[in-house]
């Protein structure tokens, strides 16, 4: 037996997409391989590092631990949906200005964690900002500049 394919319709960054996917395809692989949205990264693949963070139904989740089928009928936001055309999202501008990236691998997940936080809490304290990215590992920056960028973005938006 092979895992049967399932027809799913997911709204990704505001656009409804319908695809036949194998029932065991992860949301992460669906985004990257089926839709070509390779901004979302795979880090540990075990829900520890947060590199694959996306927002599903308004909640920040690890896309590596979710079947694409579970996202059927849901709203999914990825890093590709942040910028408005050529105009960067305040979080993206703040990350660039603060130098909140080195290798950049954690950055898409960090940005989505920052967005999920600011969507719920538009003016976080520094501690709340740190807590908001607590599920995302960065091996380069030491987090200071990332937290600073989230705080700057909160001021701007």
């Amino acid at each position, binding site marked *: 037996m092979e895992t049967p394919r399932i027809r799913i319709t997911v709204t990704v960054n505001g656009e409804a997409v319908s695809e036949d996917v194998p029932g065991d395809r992860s949301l992460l692989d669906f985004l990257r391989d089926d839709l070509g949205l390779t901004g979302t990264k795979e880090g540990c693949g075990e829900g520890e590092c947060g590199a694959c963070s996306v927002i599903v139904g308004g909640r920040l989740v690890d896309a590596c631990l979710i079947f694409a089928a579970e996202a059927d009928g849901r709203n999914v936001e990825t890093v590709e949906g942040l910028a408005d055309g050529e105009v960067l999202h305040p979080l993206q501008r703040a990350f660039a200005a603060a130098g909140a990236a080195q290798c950049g691998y954690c950055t898409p997940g960090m940005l989505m964690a920052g967005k*999920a936080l600011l969507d719920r809490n538009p003016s976080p304290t520094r501690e709340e900002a740190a807590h908001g990215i607590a599920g995302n590992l960065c091996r380069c920056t030491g987090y200071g500049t990332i937290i600073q960028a989230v705080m700057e973005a909160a001021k701007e938006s």
Partner: protein
Amino acid sequence: MRPFHYRAPRSLDEALALLTPRAVPLAGGTDLFLKMERRQTQADTVVDLKRIPELDRIEAVDGGVRIGALALMDSLGASSLIAGQYEALTRSARVVGSIQTRNRATLGGNLANASPAADTAPPLMALGASAEVADAGGTRQVPVDRLFLGPGRTALRDGELLTAILVPALPARAGSSFHRCVRTAMDIALVNCAAFIRLDEDHPDTVAEARIALGAVAPTPLRAASAETRLAGARLDEDVVEAAGECAASDARPIDDVRASADYRREMVRVLTRRAIRSAFRRARGEA
């Protein structure tokens, strides 16, 4: 992964009909997804419960609070119905995994997964909670302290589904607390401990009833029976707290593993039990 059929029933009845012996229920998936990826399950059918309406509701009911099995850790941690009475449960729900985990992981999943280290198990045992279990024939209740049979094994029979947790109302002059120690915030508990203390009506320093539950120090979450006996009827001073911690350490049956040695775990049981008793006592007195 082994091949499987993905099903997303829209009603509880439909879900129960799908729960054949080789079907596995899917809640948040934070444990199940990896078990499937590592081929640690024989399941040929995955029954996603998230399309069933109202299975995630947290509501006040006669005599307490009913928490739907699909309630998210994040919702539990934020619920004023829970925070008002069941401090131990609130604390445990707020420290499970990361934000991403808590936005996905459910109370029912944390219990049904039956990890000896499950953070919500000791609080529910200390609070005297029961699991509501359904099958095609109806529902029954299983006290949470009789739910666990071993690592990954519960008292649920084939075809049964954990549908809700019922937590009895907090009595007057009672309080609860949860403490744990971990290597890193993302790791599972080395040891966790919940305490429930109810104080005597006439003697506000005297324990009328105590329940202490420990996690990650036995094949299942465990009631510390001798610690409870030591506390019942005792005037709660530091000597009694110390002695109860000692009792709890002897109640524990920890093992050496990659995270900690049995000796260290036993020592932490002593420390965490004392802390948990002190904070449950303060809450029972309305001080915190």
